[in-house]
């Protein structure tokens, strides 16, 4: 086993736990060595491994970087690599792009067109790309556009590159929650909740979506039950930062600050520095909800390890941290509004009700 042998490094990467950062670092190092040796196929495999590892370990920026490399090589050598897998990666990337406010609307549009065109062979009705466009419209704060794309997505026939059945049901439920129709949302995910349909992220994120709406509808026992069941699933997936935000704010509105603080601490390292800024904004809102509730409860200081300057020696000055978090929220809100040319995301982020903001935040 050698640290300079790309084959060994790639094997080591593949033997690492799926969601570990070590897998990503080993695959990236293998990719560099393969490239340095001019071994295109090895490099492609290593970039693909790195891309997958980046996705599962919470590094969407690196996922995009690796996908861009693979697409370029694919275009240079059209029949050499597996296009289907590559387009799956591309699909993941395009859905992340609006989460980076420095990427202009026009560039996002161009990427959507390019991705849709490439996927036509696997998705003749464009179902997959229409669903992504629905999400993109929501993240760009374009509500009329979102309604329009929702109609087109839901009317389109699925192709082989469409999401799995569990994800489709989860998306359908999210759609109804977005429209404020809790019962229809529940009906959409029946097979997911009774265990007949599942995948790597569903029903994990499904429970997270429902808990606050259920609590608001007065179905508190069910909300408590789904919070427990869902949290048991997501707590092993730090990269599901958006779902963590839901589980954190649920404990804020139910008044269980002990658990809210513990949940925040568990993923704050990744959540507060998450490279994709829209997801980070959602997590900042959950952090604001916790710190706000602590301040309201009269706690000036709390033993809580947060990253960066938010805590010192494992203790947080609640009011100072709250001010910092508000500043970070404001900065991101401004960046998104400037790019989006709408105030939808900014207004949501600035609202006085951070729990409600997390509940309504567009999180695919």
């Amino acid at each position, binding site marked *: 086993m050698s640290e300079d042998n790309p084959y060994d490094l790639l094997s080591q990467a593949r033997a*690492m736990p799926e969601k570990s950062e070590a897998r990503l670092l080993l695959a990236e190092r293998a990719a560099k060595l393969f490239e340095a040796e001019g071994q295109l196929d090895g490099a492609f495999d290593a970039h693909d491994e790195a891309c997958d590892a980046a996705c599962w370990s919470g590094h969407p920026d690196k996922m*995009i970087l690796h996908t861009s490399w693979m697409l370029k090589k694919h275009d240079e050598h059209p029949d050499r690599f597996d296009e289907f897998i590559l387009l799956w990666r591309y699909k993941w990337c395009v859905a992340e792009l609006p989460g980076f406010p420095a990427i202009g609307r026009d560039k996002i549009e161009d*990427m959507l067109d390019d991705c849709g065109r490439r996927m036509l062979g696997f998705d003749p009705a464009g179902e997959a790309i229409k669903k992504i466009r629905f999400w993109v419209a929501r993240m760009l704060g374009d509500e009329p556009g979102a309604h329009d794309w929702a109609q087109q997505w839901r009317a389109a026939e699925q192709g082989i590159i469409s999401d799995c059945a569990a994800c489709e049901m989860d998306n359908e439920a999210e759609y109804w929650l977005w429209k404020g129709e809790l019962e229809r949302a529940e009906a959409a995910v029946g097979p997911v909740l009774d265990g007949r349909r599942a995948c790597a992220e569903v029903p994990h994120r499904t429970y997270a979506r429902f808990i606050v709406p259920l609590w608001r509808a007065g179905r508190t026992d069910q909300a408590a039950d789904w919070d427990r069941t869902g949290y048991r699933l997501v707590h092993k997936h730090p990269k599901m930062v958006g779902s963590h935000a839901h589980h954190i704010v649920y404990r804020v509105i139910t008044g269980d600050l002990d658990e809210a603080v513990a949940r925040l601490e568990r993923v704050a390292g990744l959540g507060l520095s998450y490279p994709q800024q829209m997801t980070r904004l959602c997590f900042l809102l959950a952090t604001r909800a916790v710190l706000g509730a602590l301040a309201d409860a009269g706690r000036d200081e709390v033993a809580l390890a947060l990253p960066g300057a938010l805590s010192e020696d494992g203790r947080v000055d609640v009011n100072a941290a709250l001010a910092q978090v508000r500043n970070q929220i404001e900065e991101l809100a401004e960046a998104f509004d400037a790019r989006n040319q709408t105030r939808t995301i900014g207004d949501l982020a600035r609202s006085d009700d951070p729990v409600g903001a997390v509940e309504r935040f567009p999180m695919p």
Partner: protein
Amino acid sequence: MSAHKFQVHLGGLIDLLSHHLYSGPEVYVRELLQNAVDAIAARDDAFDPRIDIRLDHGPDGPRLHVRDNGIGLTEDEVHRFLATIGESSKRGVDAVRKEFLGQFGIGLLSGFLVSDHIELYTRSAKTEDAPVIHWRGHKDGTYEVGHDPDRTAADFAAGTEVILTARPDAHALLDVDTVVGLARHYGSLLEPPIVVHDGMAAHPINDEGAPWRQPYASPGQRREALLAYGQRVFNQRFFDAVPLVSSAGHVDGVAFVLAHSPSLAQHRADRAYLKGMLLSDRVDNLMPEWAFFVRGVLDVRGLRPTASRESFADDDALDLARDELGDCLRRYLTHLEQHDPERLTRLIAVHHLALKALAADDDESLRLFIDYLPFETSLGRMLFRDIRVKTPHIAYTPNLDAFRQMAAVAAAQGSCIVNAAYAYERRLIERLPAVLDGITVQEVDAASLLESFGELDLDERDLFADFLAEARHVLATRQCEPALKRFAPTNLPTLFADNPDAAFVREVERQQDEGDDLWSAVLDGVAAERARAMPKAQLVFNLNNPLVERLLTVDDPALRQLSIQTLYVQALLLGHFPLRPDDLRLLADGMIGLIEFGLDAHARWVQ
């Protein structure tokens, strides 16, 4: 609108069951055994339960008889069980007595996987004078039922006998070896004694019972017996066998410690029995996640399996059971630590990753095992006990590239830096101060290593200011800042000290050099936040290196520039950093320039 009843085609239903509900036709043995076990459980008077499977040859081919002395059925129940077939398909999920009939029907239908006709004789145990009922069902959905005058209460004790006649394509499934094998596979832990008779011999199926429940003369014998059992079940040799028991979920069994290190990417696959009946060989969520160094065989009495039969329902009972099973493994390791450290050392040599996974989340385990765990350091692979002897202040880096860059330099200075880039190291190390007295930890990166290097004095600063300005000029477009310091080893002329943000931005730029406009703009947007921080790598020239020392005295600016750019690319190559096209140009220009310079010097010398 008027109501109609639709016809269900039984043949189609059987095909459906055999392709979807059942994994294959061989499960008929499991289903008939389960029926027999359920019938025995449903009888509450005093009797000696037993199940006999007999193989013989009938007029239409090989036959299999499954005879139990359970509750039996009345004529009315025989009619009703067909009416209730399919009422509950959750066999084994809620095997309560009230669903016995519905489940009995489902189980019986599995006989059609191997036979076109099913015959059933049954006599209820509920009344002394119950008659023997004979039922004969056909694959087309028709059946006949009536009293059997040839069999009386005197020669047919309460219970049920099911008879299948193998279809021509299913003869092999009723072969004696197959039936004995399948019965042992599914039913070796069932409680009622099961015997297969083939006319010549009787083959006991479950006379040995669960090996972990047997008494043994000594712990050594127990271990040997369990290891032999593990080898039979999983067809591999194990390092050790650990008894498991959990009052939550009513679980008991054995964990077999693997003799090799498994891939962490592999999914768990434990063998689980549900109340003695084999559920699956691929159960993935009964044992704790960190316990990937063992494979378990477990009998579960109080947990609910999911529909896939490869997991148990993720509820509080499962959490408790998993914790208790984890405690058994912890106790085993603790026992080794106290009584057999040599064996623990051998175990950790193979399974240190699993032990790290455990210790990363469990203070007690961290305290117990940390000294035995190996780490990769700048001074080579070391056990933690040797690291802490060297220094109680543990320096570590969670970044693999940073470790590679620092390792040689740190080693030359005798300092120990731990590579914490792998799966559990970082969490383990960061938790050390809270668990062990006197240990402090510090995350280091290449920049902090540089701080330990010897700085220039004021005169040297003056002397070399022009050199640094020149180097800055050469490196201007490369997100890289030059520096001059003194460090070991002296044979290293430069050190390229990277940082993750700079590396990401550089990688983006490298791709932009080759990529199209669309991706280029998108990557700019992705990297924008990191780029705003203006991250720079550092190229540190080593003043202790003789070559660098000579370079500083060269007064020809062209030669200095050629040398700087060549040393920069050499530093990248040594660190395995990918080269951008303009890096390659820099290298080519540098090499050619230096060769020309050498040739010119040679020519001058010759003259």
